[in-house]
């Protein structure tokens, strides 16, 4: 019963923040509303027994990605609060596309008889995730480090070019 109340609270927070992100005319409000979405999703992870993922979500999404995004919004202020309307896809066609796609997916979700083998036990997950990373997921784990290195170098190269162009 408590789990249901917690779920609905988190769902309302997440969806309302996402609506502000999607529909706000001011990009600054959009970026800050993303905080509510990320925190709500973190709560959902906790509800699903993913304690390590909860911390990762707080650290990387809220502490990292959101801060970088808000930095970028602030650095490009002035042109940042552009009109939401787009001459290619307006709000109404976009909402129509989303509604149609959503209706199809909702129908598919409700019709599919999900196999239900049970629910996972609520144990600390860090130990098992560490074993999974260094066991069956070792190759993706190593490739991920290469991807992060490439992203690091790429970001430096791109921003250095920008600095050089300005100088």
């Amino acid at each position, binding site marked *: 019963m408590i789990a249901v109340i917690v779920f609905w609270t988190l769902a309302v927070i997440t969806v309302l923040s996402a609506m502000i992100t999607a529909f706000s005319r001011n990009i600054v409000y959009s970026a800050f509303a993303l905080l509510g979405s990320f925190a709500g999703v973190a709560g959902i992870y906790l509800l699903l027994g*993913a304690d390590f993922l909860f911390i990762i979500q707080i650290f990387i999404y809220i502490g990292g990605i959101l801060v970088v995004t808000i930095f970028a919004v602030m650095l490009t202020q002035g042109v940042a609060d*552009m009109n939401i309307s787009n001459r290619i896809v307006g709000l109404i066609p976009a909402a129509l596309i989303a509604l149609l796609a959503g209706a199809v997916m909702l129908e598919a979700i409700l019709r599919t008889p*999900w196999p239900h083998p049970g629910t996972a036990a609520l144990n600390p997950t860090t130990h098992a995730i560490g074993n999974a990373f260094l066991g069956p997921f070792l190759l993706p784990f190593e490739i991920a480090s290469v991807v992060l290195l490439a992203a690091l170098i790429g970001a430096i190269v791109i921003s250095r070019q920008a600095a050089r162009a300005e100088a």
Partner: protein
Amino acid sequence: MPAGLTLNHFVILSLALFLLGSICVLTRRNAIGILLGIELILNAANINYVAFAFFNPAAHYDGQVFAIFVIMLAAAEAVIGLAIVLAIYNHLRTIDVAANETLKG
């Protein structure tokens, strides 16, 4: 644990988040706004991974590991995307995606 909560609850929440994210991507002219929409979509995908993993104890950790990979890629994507956006802003003084359609300096 979740008495009264089924897989459908989480999948439909994820669907709502995905649709709001795609509306955000479709309607924004601001390049950073598009990146915000992509973050919403990635979060929706992550909810699905974790929810399906939770309701299938045999694959409990596999889903969480995949979610961690998605978060890692989202971080890399956000950094690179924002670096490109800032470079475009320094170059053209605007981040309106319609104004950048020529892709020429």
